[in-house]
């Protein structure tokens, strides 16, 4: 990734193009978002379908993905979850709460020096496996962790 970044920086023309793109992005912020929102993955009700639609099909179990979350969450409406990938070349990460009505929580793409780390707070309808998937070197990896929920957070 560093190699890529260096050759990228050396290319003055490319830097100019990026600057133009950024200015255009500031005028029209929507244009700055790289990809269209993955409605197929976010709407999926089945966790494996959500994972597949998000592009993390066939992920191999890896303990090099370290998930931090409480063992027991008193309030499912706000559950702090963070994940670090120690797999070299990690380029993206996604979060899923398998027992939620729609399991996909979020996806993140890292570039230009971003560390493969995300900390956030998720909603959990009930006790569930929290799954994190990553892409590294063109392969998919996953790890998971169970969080017990005493009061569900999706209401209604």
């Amino acid at each position, binding site marked *: 990734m560093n190699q890529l970044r260096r050759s990228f920086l050396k290319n003055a023309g490319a830097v100019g193009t990026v600057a133009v793109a*950024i200015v255009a992005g500031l005028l029209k912020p929507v244009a700055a978002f790289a990809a269209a929102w993955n409605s197929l993955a976010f709407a999926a009700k089945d966790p494996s379908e959500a994972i597949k639609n998000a592009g993390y099909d066939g992920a191999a179990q890896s303990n090099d993905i370290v998930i931090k979350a409480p063992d027991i969450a008193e309030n499912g409406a706000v559950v702090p979850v963070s994940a670090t990938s120690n797999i070299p070349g990690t380029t993206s990460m996604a979060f899923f709460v398998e027992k939620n009505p729609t399991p996909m929580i*979020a*996806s993140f793409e890292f570039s230009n020096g*971003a560390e493969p780390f995300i900390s956030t707070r998720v*909603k959990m309808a009930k006790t569930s496996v929290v799954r994190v998937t990553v892409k590294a070197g063109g392969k998919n990896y996953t790890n998971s962790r169970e969080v017990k929920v005493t009061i569900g957070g999706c209401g209604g």
Partner: protein
Amino acid sequence: MAEAMKMRATMEGNIVDVKVLIQHVMETGLRKDAKTEKLIPAHFINQVVATLNGKTVLDAQWGGGIAKNPFLGFKIKGGKPGDKVGVNAADNLGNKYDGEVVVA
């Protein structure tokens, strides 16, 4: 919308540690109003882009499963004090939320 987003960026060794809080209802669209029993329409931030000195470092897609008043923490290697970290977010109704902070 300046007050909707709070940001902090500090050095942790040679890594910039960024913390972002955005005020937002984050309605999934699956929840029913207790009185009317009608579904509350979906209203959540679904796209978030973070930059370091104008260059994208994080490109995120969110669903309604991110908790109300979202918190986002991330880390960037290669930053230094004085650098600018920016965050642009948009929700499913097209509202925009922007923030910028100087690395301390």
